[in-house]
């Protein structure tokens, strides 16, 4: 299961260990990251504070007053021998998207770059099997893999400022739904009324890393009515 020399364990300051599984992105690497993340959540070693999964690595943060890098590495090595997570194991979440009008300023450019019609781009985006691989950049920014090859486009040369929250973005194989007004260099192909940042204190985010995501097309009218009911 493990390639020669992997995983690698590197200490970070006095309070964390970075476990790296490969130096390039692959489904098997992601499964290994999520597998160790899941195993640590199930059997946390003493002093474990939190884990943060990224594309090819897992950050394990611990309390240095209770444990140290050596103990945490031993625990991680023992757990890494357990089978990795099945990529179909995550909960399936549905996210609604309106691909129309001002909500999709870049969809025509994506269509042109992909040599497809706008409707074909939408169909293709809806057919993707998305999985949340990591959160990053800003609170609730869930990076999903699974954009179909036919509509994979590179990032723009320069970022565009003040992109509205709820924008559905693509760049290469990755897709994300923004949660805050932020700049982005990714292509904006739709807008979602689905809140990724929930107001539920015990589960403030819609997804956990490893969850699968299905997009569902909605009209502008449906989008407006969802927003109207969502706002208190």
């Amino acid at each position, binding site marked *: 299961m493990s390639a020669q020399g992997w995983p690698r364990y590197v200490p970070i*300051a006095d309070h964390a260990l970075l476990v790296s599984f490969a130096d390039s992105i692959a489904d098997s690497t992601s499964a290994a990251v999520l597998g160790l993340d899941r195993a640590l959540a199930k059997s946390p070693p003493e002093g474990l504070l939190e884990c943060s999964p*990224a594309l090819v690595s897992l950050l394990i*943060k611990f309390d240095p007053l209770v444990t140290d890098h050596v103990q945490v590495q031993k625990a991680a090595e023992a757990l890494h021998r357990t089978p990795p997570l099945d990529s179909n194991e995550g909960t399936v979440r549905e996210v609604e998207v309106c691909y129309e009008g001002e909500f999709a300023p870049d969809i025509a450019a994506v269509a042109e770059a992909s040599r497809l019609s706008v409707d074909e781009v939408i169909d293709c985006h809806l057919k993707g099997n998305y999985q949340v691989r990591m*959160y990053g950049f800003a609170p609730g920014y869930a990076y999903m893999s699974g954009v179909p090859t036919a509509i994979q486009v590179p990032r723009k040369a320069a970022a565009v400022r003040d992109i509205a929250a709820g924008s559905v973005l693509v760049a290469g194989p990755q897709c994300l739904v923004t949660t805050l007004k932020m700049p982005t260099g990714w292509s904006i192909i739709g807008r979602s009324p689905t809140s990724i940042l929930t107001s539920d204190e015990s589960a*403030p985010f819609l997804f956990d890393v490893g969850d699968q995501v299905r997009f569902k097309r909605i009209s502008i009218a449906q989008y407006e009515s969802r927003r109207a009911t969502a706002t208190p």
Partner: protein
Amino acid sequence: MTEATLRIKACGPLVSYQDGGRPGMLRFGVPASGPMDQLAHAAAHAALGNPDGSTAVEISTGGIDLVCEAGEVTFCVSGGDFQVFHSGAWTRSWCVRTLRAGDTLAIRPGQWGSWAYLAFCGELVCKQWAGRTATHSTSGIGGGSLSAGAVVKLRDTRVVEEREGEIPVPDLARPRKSARVVLGPQIGAFSAGSEAVLLGHEFAVTPANDRMGMRLSGPALALNDALAILSEPIVRGSIQVAGDGVASILLADHQTIGGYPKIATIVSVDLDWLAQLRAPDSIRFTAVEASEAVLMARSEASMRRQYLEQISVPRGNLQTRLMRENLISGFILG
């Protein structure tokens, strides 16, 4: 129920509500936020007898001017060396006083330090996000930022005269010349000489210094261009180096993931005084082994606990105060 109302008359940028922080959410892209100087924040609450991790107002070098419109409440100002003007009297941060209706309070930067804390014997009424008031400056989640005209509400306010007076500034809180780092985790992304450059030269804090991080100026740390690194997790204290070779230290509101390699990470016990540096203060880096960094965290945790316990005891009448001040200065100097 006792209450107090304060009105902000003037206020610099980056003045926000901060409790002890919101740890445990790195996996959702949310850094812990909380105070830039955790020791000073803890000291303000300890000196007032508040539970650790209560909410305080974090004040930048932009300062703050406020007036107490109603009620009365004992407060503490801690952190760095800030000037405190309270209804005609002038003093320095690391003091406990009482604000009464009609009183004005102004806090301004002094000789050193970038962040001060204003804590109260009472509860600051502000928004929470995921159960915490800590404000994440870039998204605004949490209690939020203060600006001119804002009204600050306090409830369960108390006046505790036996806590009034000065509190000692611990040596642990004072800026030093050199910060200890553990090399990595992406030291392999740098060219061979970069480690020696990091450890052998002086860097300076630049004005690009906020709650997200502190950009340094100094010799370039050359990347090994063989391989672009993938986005990797970031922690508070990561020293990341952009493509131009410029190093930045990531602080309380850091991004949780980033594609720039991290040459080293500051040990946690050096983060509080480091956050208090100002442009153009200089800084050097000394490498320690990860195992040494763990031992430092343990020995300094007990020193911090001892200090906070000392200042949490009410000062009492004048005679007890004099006695205690002798004991504390003995401890601080020792």
